[in-house]
């Protein structure tokens, strides 16, 4: 995949989502829905970011940590996944799964790009804090980059 290929990034997100939605449905009993125009917009935005980064650092291939950091940023911002359910009517745990579906999708994508088994990498407390931070704080792409480089090393 070239640095500047929005279509390839779109297909990659669609590929991640196929598996994510199946597994989410079997784990939670709710089927997530993708906004494919948001996937396309994420692809375009990712291309701008990767091109800028690769040009500045004179890289042919952006590193995985940067690729994952930008995708997490755009998934958080453009929120391409939704669950059609009244979250307030769901049991509490399923409601939390539904509420945080985009944060989970972002981490799912990052785990694949970084080739990191999140169950091994994080304690429940740490993953709890990551999900909270992604939902309610404003971590920058650079924060994620440092975090992902650390995880990749």
């Amino acid at each position, binding site marked *: *995949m070239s640095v500047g290929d929005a279509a*390839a990034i779109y*297909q*990659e997100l669609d*590929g*991640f989502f196929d*598996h*994510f939605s199946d*597994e*989410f449905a079997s*784990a*939670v009993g709710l089927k997530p829905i993708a906004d494919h125009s948001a996937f396309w917009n994420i692809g375009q935005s990712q291309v701008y970011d990767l091109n800028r980064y690769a040009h*500045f*650092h*004179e*890289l042919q*291939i*952006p*590193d*995985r940590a940067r*690729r994952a950091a930008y995708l997490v940023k755009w998934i958080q911002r453009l929120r391409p996944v939704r669950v059609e359910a009244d979250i307030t009517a769901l049991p*509490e*745990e399923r409601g*939390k*799964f539904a509420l*945080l579906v985009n944060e*989970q999708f972002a*981490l*799912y*994508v990052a*785990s*694949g*790009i970084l*080739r990191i*088994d*999140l*169950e*091994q990498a*994080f304690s*429940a*407390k740490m*993953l*709890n804090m*990551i*999900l*909270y931070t992604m939902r309610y704080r404003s971590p920058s792409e650079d924060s994620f980059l440092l975090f992902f480089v650390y995880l990749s090393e």
Partner: protein
Amino acid sequence: MANARDTAKRIEALSSTPALQKVSRWRIPNSDGEYKAAESIEFAKANSTGFFRAVRSALQLITAKKD
């Protein structure tokens, strides 16, 4: 005005110095090699069960009743 012109000339001279132009480029070590999306997707798929198990454990900390 003379000082301002001198400063502008100095900046222009510095910015066209090849050695200093290079300072603005920070080389990031990257040994990741060619990126293959299909392999990343397969990795995530293979670890899906553990992924959702980990998320469930994390969410249980949110939903757990406080003492």
